[in-house]
């Protein structure tokens, strides 16, 4: 083809582009993954999954469909609002559109099953952490005691409290109610990236006041591993006072971590090798100079 020929027929690129766009539209709107594929994937995963496995959905925007189809027995709150992936030995990643979660980039792919438009990839964690005790699961009067300042907090079974935008994490019906309106509860926080995390919702009163949580019988390992954050709308303006979380065993301070606005879901790890293999009371103290919208949440486990 000569240059003149190309030039002569160059106009055809426009109608061709129009037809290409039409074709792409037809393909895209007819390639929606049918519900039957999701259900087939669910049935397979239901037959494979163990309680300590992770089930996750990709891309992130497909998560509601995953939760709807897989139901609360597989898409559990513990899996959906996980702190991180380190403790899961195996993961079933249920994905569409060839998407994968970055969390599994270093994991070993051990299997892949296709159910029409849904792919279930089985991943193995090369170094899963062995969790001994999960503190969030200990939010219960038999395993935990709470004080706010000098006053003790009572565990109550009431109605949940929740709201619209700006309300903060919901307060479940079962929670520790403290004098002067304080509380401690297991909830789910939206972090700075709007990712959900199960955590102990424990807003500090501000000033010299401290929220003190006694975990009555903790089995210690070599590390106390955790994360902390504030509710996204409380920390995104980066104008609030830092929140300090201090862990103590008896009179000994295991360590302190500080969360500053903008840190997001911030990990921490304290060395507890000296306590490994022992049981005992672990105290978490939460304090901040100001109590103004310090909608603070943390999680930790012994490992």
């Amino acid at each position, binding site marked *: 083809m000569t240059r003149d020929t190309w030039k*002569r*027929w*160059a*106009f*055809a*690129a*426009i*109608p*061709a*582009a*129009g*037809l290409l*766009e*039409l074709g*792409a*539209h*037809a393909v*895209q*709107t007819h390639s*929606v*993954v049918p519900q039957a594929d999701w259900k087939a994937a669910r049935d397979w995963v239901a037959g494979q999954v163990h309680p300590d496995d992770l089930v996750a959905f990709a*891309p992130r*925007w497909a998560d*509601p*469909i995953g*939760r*709807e189809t*897989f*139901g*609360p027995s597989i*898409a*559990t*709150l513990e899996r*959906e*609002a996980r702190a991180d992936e380190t403790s899961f030995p195996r993961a079933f990643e249920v994905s*569409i*559109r060839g*998407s994968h979660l970055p969390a599994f980039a270093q994991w070993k792919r051990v299997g892949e099953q296709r159910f029409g438009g849904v792919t279930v990839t089985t991943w193995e964690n090369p170094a899963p952490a062995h969790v001994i005790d999960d503190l969030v699961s200990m939010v219960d009067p038999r395993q935990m005691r709470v004080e706010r300042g000098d006053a003790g907090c009572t565990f109550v079974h009431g*109605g*949940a*409290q*929740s*709201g*619209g*935008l700006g*309300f903060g*994490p*919901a*307060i*479940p019906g079962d929670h520790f109610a403290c004098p002067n309106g304080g509380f401690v509860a297991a*909830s*789910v*926080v*939206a972090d700075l990236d*709007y990712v*959900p995390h199960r955590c102990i919702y424990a807003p500090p009163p501000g000033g010299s006041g401290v929220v003190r949580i006694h975990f009555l019988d903790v089995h210690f390992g070599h590390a106390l591993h955790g994360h902390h954050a504030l*509710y*996204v709308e409380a920390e*995104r*303006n980066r104008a609030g006072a830092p929140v300090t979380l201090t862990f103590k065993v008896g009179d000994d301070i295991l360590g302190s971590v500080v969360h500053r606005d903008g840190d997001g879901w911030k990990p921490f790890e304290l060395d507890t090798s000296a306590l490994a293999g022992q049981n005992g009371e672990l105290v978490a103290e939460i304090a901040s100079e100001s109590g103004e919208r310090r909608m603070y949440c943390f999680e930790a486990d012994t490992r």
Partner: protein
Amino acid sequence: MKLRSLLKLPDRIGWRDHVIGAALGLVYVVWLLATARSLGFPRDEGVYFRAGTDYVRWWRMLFDHGSAALSQSAIDAAWSTNHEHPALMKTLFGVSWWLFHETWHVFRDASTAYRLPGMMSAGVTLWVIYLFGARAWSRRAGLVAAALFALMPRVFFHAHLACFDVPITALWILCVYVHWRAQERRGLGGTIAWAVAVGVVFGLALETKHNAWILPGVLVPHALFVHRRGLLRSLKVGRVSIPASLVSMAVLGPIVFYALWPYLWNDTLERVQWYVNFHLHHEYYNIEFLGKNYFGPPSPRAYLPVMIAATVPTVTLLLFGVGAFERGAVGVRRLRAWVRRTLEKPAGDAPPADPRETDLLLALALLAAVGPWFLPKTPIFGGTKHWMPAYPAMALFAGRGFEIVLAAMKRALPALRGRRLVAAEAGLAACVLAAPLAITVHSHPFGLSAYVPLVGGTAGGADLGLNRQFWGFTTQTAATEYLNPKAPRNATVFILDTTWDAWAHMQEEGRVRADLRVVGAPHEAMFSLVQHELHMSEVDYSIWVADQTDSPVYIVEHDGVPIVSIYRRP
């Protein structure tokens, strides 16, 4: 024979072209009316419905009781509602509701009557685009330009609403068009008439939405350039002459703005200052862009180009590119010839001068409308609607692009004659219009969730982390698909981003079951809705805790992408 001569279009653009333009607009309005009931009510619409009702009540009071309506207390009682926006469109919404719903019962739904003026403004936009294109280049260019504008999915979505974004688009291009016509050489009467028209239309634009503040940035430099020689001649003899259209804009514009907004009739300066400050220091709302939630400055500079590429059909953008490039090339050739003449060298083969400087005007109309969205402090929460006034100029360049492609086709296929040529022309038009039509039809009623095939459609937009919706209007679809058929009688519903006003209107019109009751928090509700936007996730997680389940019972989807999740408390 007489009918034939009536139908035959003369070379000169005239009344028949107004008929064509009006017919285009009418077809669009009918299409909008036919699809209006499936579109829920966005947050803002509920407010504007109420404002329109209050404003028309005041007009009726004025006609019934005369001067009593002119007291400040009477004016403020009616016009304080939503005084952060001027009154023209809300007044028209109210008048339309009063006439077409309350009085003449033309529309069964009050909302359709409220929405009619907005829809008609979309029709007017098509009319003006057609006329502009026909006069500037050719009827074919005008037709294709109008069609390409109509077939932008976001335009189609917003054209349904009793809001201001399409009306300001209409008045923006109408003002540009009238100003353009005012630059023609005429007798004194014609010059004055067109100049007055510029002032009045500019005033109406000011009275529609604050985008109009930018219009002088289009019209003033353009008029000064068009009249540059006359202006320089006047200056040389010590006189300052200002084009009549600009004088009219400066004088009549503010008068119309003031006259049509009774809220400004008292404490005028204070209230105008408040209005200006409100928009200069507007609150930032949340909006997702490329997976990140923006809620304050700095706004991402890539927002506008990425959103245009992701929401305007690609073939439209390509045609715009062809047209804009060709007009740009003509401009460069003219500039080069001018430079050579100035240097007293032979100018060569220069394109003919355009006394109305059409290309410059359209370029300014486009650039001024998009310019603010490159500034870091401009909030981006409105998605594409805030720069919609740029789209008519974009469509006009695209219409010109179509004409160039058509000319190239004729050069490439010289043997085509008669019916075969007509068929080839129609085929070319079909090739460039089919995709925009299909995409626009498919986008409804999820016009804010839909993205063009270039980015992978709705799912591609979700992959990219582009905003999926705002204003909570998709609650109606959630009701249609799930709540109306499935919810128990008197069930309570938490509606999150939907206003109670909007919900009440949907119930009044039978779009949502009348027995369903709205509550203010998920823990009070049997059903909780989450309209999926990134920042709404925080409430999603609250529902998990309040309801002790993270599994929705139903999801409204568009092309497999979640739009609304519905939870039911176990």
